[in-house]
């Protein structure tokens, strides 16, 4: 493919050689490791600046889901009262997962588009924008566990030992969200319409996932279809230990695990296979 080149300074090792510098899933991981300080800086920036001009600042991270929960509780709790004894805890636990997913993936899209203006000028591993977007969403998710605890206390719902499983749930959800975020942001670079279409998709997706309504409301014949939805499993991983006070069974855990690992691998491999084109396309 490449012409044989007599290197004039063959005594020293090149820092950069375009001939053997194919970006691969592995090499991008190494580059990301080198730029971990940037990763931290970007997460910091996003958290600090989001509410910078508001009086309550970062507290909005916690107040936002709380407000949504109050509205939804006010609107829906009468409908679902019989099926769900503690609707506020049910909805908040589902909402936190959903917010994490939709915020994280959206931020991955806008992060890559923003980063694109930089990627055209200087070298930065392009995955840093998607990973930092999910990192920011993860910090927000952890922060929003505070209002969850408050709601559990206020409504007098029990605390369960099964809640110790939550770090595992969060890990699975993060892996899935990262994989999906990288995939969709990469797609959005090549097809600008994807970013808009994705908003519509997200709305539909949210209503197809049992977040504000109980699972028992899903007709029996539709249940197999619901189970194709990966977010069905992700929400379950997070909600079971909090709301039902039990660990997921293997039948519940394995689909979530498979989606998390599968999506992460697919997203990462797809994203890195396109890395060389971003500077041309963004």
């Amino acid at each position, binding site marked *: 493919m490449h012409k044989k080149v007599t*290197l004039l300074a063959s005594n020293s090792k090149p820092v950069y050689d375009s001939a053997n510098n194919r970006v691969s899933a592995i090499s991008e991981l190494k580059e990301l490791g*080198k730029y971990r300080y940037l990763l931290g800086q970007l997460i910091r920036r996003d958290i600090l*600046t989001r509410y910078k001009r508001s009086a309550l600042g970062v507290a909005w991270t916690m107040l936002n889901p709380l407000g949504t929960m109050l509205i939804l509780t006010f609107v829906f709790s009468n409908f679902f009262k019989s099926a769900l004894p503690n609707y506020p805890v049910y909805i908040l636990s589902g909402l936190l997962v959903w917010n994490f997913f939709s915020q994280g993936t959206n931020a991955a899209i806008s992060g890559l588009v923003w980063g694109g203006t930089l990627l*055209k000028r200087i070298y930065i591993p392009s995955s840093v924008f998607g990973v930092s977007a999910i990192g920011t969403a993860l910090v927000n998710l952890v922060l929003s566990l505070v209002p969850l605890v408050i709601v559990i206390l206020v409504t007098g719902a029990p605390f369960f030992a099964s809640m110790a499983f939550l770090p595992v749930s969060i890990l699975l959800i993060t892996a899935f969200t990262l994989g999906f975020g990288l995939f969709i942001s990469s797609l959005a670079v090549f097809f600008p319409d994807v970013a808009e279409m994705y908003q519509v998709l997200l709305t539909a997706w949210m209503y197809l996932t049992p977040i504000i309504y109980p699972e028992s409301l899903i007709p029996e014949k539709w249940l197999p279809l619901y189970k194709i939805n990966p977010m069905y499993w992700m929400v379950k991983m997070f909600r079971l230990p909090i709301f039902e006070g039990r660990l997921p069974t293997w039948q519940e855990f394995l689909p979530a695990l498979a989606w998390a690992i599968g999506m992460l691998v697919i997203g990462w491999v797809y994203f890195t296979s396109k890395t060389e084109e971003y500077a041309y396309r963004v």
Partner: protein
Amino acid sequence: MFEGKEVDYQPPVAQPIIQLTDVSVSYRLPSERIGTFKEYAIRKLQRKIKINKFWALTDINLHVNRGEVFGLIGNNGAGKSTMLKVISKVLKPTKGRVVVYGKIAPLLELGAGFHPELSGRENVFLNGALLGYSRSEMESVFDEIVEFSELEQFINAPVRTYSSGMFARLGFAVATAHVPEILILDEILSVGDEAFQRKCNLRMKNFQQSGTTVLMVSHALDMLEKMCNRVAWIDKGTIRKMGEPHEAISAYREVNL
């Protein structure tokens, strides 16, 4: 800033630090961009996805020696910036090979990557991270950056309150805080007032004396003639003339002025 990190001065002997061999770069024409899936699907079915290529660079052979100050001149759209990008790893050459024997510090368009809501201090670290530096590398030069940019009183204020001159000064100070092995400058040496300009030029000279290789694009031909060891005139993606600054520049002037 130079204490404790002296770089041996290497005279500009023929020891290439950047080497381009038969390098070509093609862009897709903007009119060819396919925006929607529908469009994509239709065109795919019709097999109408033509690859309309525009060659920004064709068969470039060039090497820059260690310690050299190398200038690139040419009209807008001639391929100068593309050349810098292909060297600094931003674009992969479509054909040919680029080999670089040193760490490159690109001078990011001053202040690109700054966040208006963050303070000057926070932006110094963010911008440094974008340029690939670590925390400790940035901490060691922070005070020097503040001093150089003359922003002592404003460093904790959000940069949205800065004047454009302050903005550019801080950007320049961050990007040049470390003595780079290879420095890439794309038409950005006109920062701030005259006094600050002098400081910038002094810093550039110090870099040169420390053995930094400088690759610069500029339309300020007189400045290039003074600063460069060699100049290449790029015209429509090829090297029209390369050699002594005076020769290349007067050849360019003859055709264009």
